């Protein structure tokens, strides 16, 4: 009786386990599909997601009706979109047809994507399309091209440049910070030392007459996107990740780059909250008028110039190239899921996205498309467009593309974010970061 019950129970349990073992979830290579129906697309919230939803709505109302295709856009989270997609790809899911990808993880995602072979990509910046090419195949269509700028309060700089008393104070601060007297200059001419002096000058802790509480805000949260910002400083000092195939994060340039952050943080020329700051905190710092300038993502400029969103500083913020003359460039992109069951329809929508019309709509929605023609024609929408085009060709650099590029950004942030805010020793942190990078390269 009791034994029968146990036997019955065991039989049921094993049946369940066996049935769930055989055949995984998801397809074995996807399906071309009927060329019509629903196409599911993923993006992340923020300027890019907003712009994409406008393009998708316009498509569904017009071209989509003609094609018989309805595009469904899902917005995930800024921090975790790629992890969620990695999980979906790991389970060979066919839930999403078009993934949101980027040039910094295309190498990693390529095994789960289909190359985009028959789409005309001539309208894009060559460097953007190249950044999405892995092993000679194009795996993504560029959406936003992203780089960094120095965003600064033009009104405060003008006041400084026109006031001899303020200039004298600036020189005094420069002497104290750098050991040499430097005169204030226009931010488009700054090098990284000028950046440091200006951060000190505009901080109340160094200069009680400063118009702002803090000179700058460092994006020092343990986040892979903050590694991209710090890379500007690293490259600005002449360093980079790899030298002759070997990890080079323990170079003098790297030490200077980490030390710059640590000095600014420890001297109070940035808010102590910077240890948890990234894009939104930097925006808040500039919008509130408490900070004079910051190295920030290009996507930030639109909302800082909009009186509805930034009533205190709209019209007062200007753009300059990142001090040190180097800016990280990457492209966000859309890619085709290898396991999608509606590939023909998805490709139709992707071909639509590759046109200047679609990307003009994207620009009007708040994005920064990777098409020189669109940027030049639409400077009225976003005055940053002209600067973006120029800076990408003159100052742009990209980190080495290898399958573990994405992991490398995260690991560097984890290894160095303590040193950026003076919590761990600079040399020790760089040695650890270097060793970990070497492991990822191998």
């Amino acid at each position: 009786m009791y034994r029968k019950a146990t036997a019955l129970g065991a039989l049921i349990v094993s049946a369940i386990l066996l049935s769930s073992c055989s055949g995984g979830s998801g397809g074995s290579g996807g399906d071309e599909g009927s060329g019509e129906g629903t196409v599911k697309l993923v993006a992340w919230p923020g300027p890019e997601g907003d712009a994409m939803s406008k393009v998708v709505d316009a498509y569904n109302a017009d071209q989509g009706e003609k094609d018989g295709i309805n595009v469904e856009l899902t917005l995930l989270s800024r921090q975790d979109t790629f992890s969620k997609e990695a999980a979906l790809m790991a389970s060979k899911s066919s839930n999403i047809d078009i993934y949101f990808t980027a040039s910094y993880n295309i190498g990693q995602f390529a095994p789960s994507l289909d190359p985009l072979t028959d789409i005309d990509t001539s309208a894009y910046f060559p460097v953007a399309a190249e950044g999405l090419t892995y092993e000679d195949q194009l795996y993504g269509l560029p959406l936003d091209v992203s780089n960094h700028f120095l965003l600064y309060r033009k009104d405060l700089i003008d006041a400084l440049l026109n006031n001899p008393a303020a200039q004298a104070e600036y020189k005094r601060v420069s002497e104290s910070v750098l050991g040499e007297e430097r005169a204030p200059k226009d931010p488009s001419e700054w090098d990284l030392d000028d950046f440091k002096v200006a951060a000190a000058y505009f901080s109340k802790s160094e200069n009680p007459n400063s118009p702002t509480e803090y000179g700058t805000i460092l994006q020092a949260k343990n986040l892979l996107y903050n590694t991209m910002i710090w890379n500007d400083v690293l490259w600005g000092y002449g360093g980079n990740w790899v030298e002759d195939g070997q990890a080079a994060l323990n170079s003098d340039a790297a030490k200077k780059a980490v030390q710059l952050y640590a000095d600014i943080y420890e001297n109070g020329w940035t808010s102590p909250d910077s240890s948890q700051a990234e894009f939104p905190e930097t925006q808040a710092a500039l919008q509130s008028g408490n900070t004079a300038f910051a190295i920030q993502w290009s996507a930030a400029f639109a909302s800082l110039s909009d009186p509805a969103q930034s009533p205190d500083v709209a019209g007062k913020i200007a753009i300059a190239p990142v001090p040190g003359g180097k800016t990280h460039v990457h492209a966000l992109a859309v890619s085709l899921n290898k396991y999608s069951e509606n590939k023909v329809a998805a490709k139709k929508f992707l071909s639509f996205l590759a046109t200047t019309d679609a990307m003009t709509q994207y620009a009007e929605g708040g994005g920064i498309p990777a098409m020189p023609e669109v940027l030049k024609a639409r400077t009225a929408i976003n005055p940053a467009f002209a600067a973006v085009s120029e800076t990408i060709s003159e100052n742009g650099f990209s980190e080495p593309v290898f399958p573990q590029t994405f992991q490398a950004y995260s690991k560097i942030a984890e290894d160095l974010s303590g040193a950026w805010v003076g919590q761990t020793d600079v040399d020790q942190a760089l040695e650890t970061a270097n060793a970990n990078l070497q492991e990822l390269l191998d």
Partner: protein
Amino acid sequence: MPNTVERNKSIATERRKRTTAATILSLPLILFAAVFVIYPLASGALTAFQSSTLFNQTTELNGIDNFVSLFRNDGFAKSAGFTLGFSAVVVAVEMLLGFGLALMMNRAFPGKKLFFTLLLLPIMVAPALLGVMFRLLLNGNIGALPALLQIFGLNVSLFAPDSIVPLLVVLDVLQWTPFTFLIIYAGLQSFPKELLEASSMDGAGYFRSLTLVIVPVLKPVLFAAFFLRAIDAIRTFDVIYVLTAGGPGTSTTTLSIFIYKTAFEAGDFGKAAAAALVVLVVLVPFVPFIVRRISSTGIEAKK
């Protein structure tokens, strides 16, 4: 004698009927446990011995390599240390505060219902949402709390490395004290009043009746609250990940964040599964100890 044989047969039939009924009625639970508990556990434990990564989800076994690499650098040990320290502090504070609040609420006073509802509000908020809320609320430039403090002339920086851990403790206490409060309060409602009357007749003051009567009788309830909170605290992920992502560096990385990052940022599923298995194996021995305390009734302890 024939009577006894017949009686034995009918007893056996009854028992068989009851066992069959019991099995059929518990089938849903067995199914549920098999699918949602046993299968993932077995699958995860197996992954711990495979060299499965994001790029290559092979089922190839690699012995104990994952475990060796887990202990090769101090990331895992550091996160374990932080998690245990954090959990110890928050659980202690929440138990004390929860108990205090339960005792305080264990009487009628005007506005009790309103106060009760307000007290329970924090646990209704999803932990990740609480993290996002406070990220905005405590922002030095646009947050309401720093603005309020500035009126009193206090310029605080709540996210600085020195104040981030106390902040995380405060947020956890804020969210989960209502939980311990609720469990202990429920326990107090079924507390036999005669014991207190008896002890006060014997001349016991408030404090003595608290420590010598209330606490021992409430032991199962207190252990239940402690156990539930401790398990949850050791698994803490949401609020900390949203606010600090485990940083600066790895100073606020908990075990869950370590496992998550190993799996989804470093892409090493085998190592992450190994870490999860180690945590399970370390915690499992405590379970029988606690369960025994919960399932005993406090009155027995008094004897």
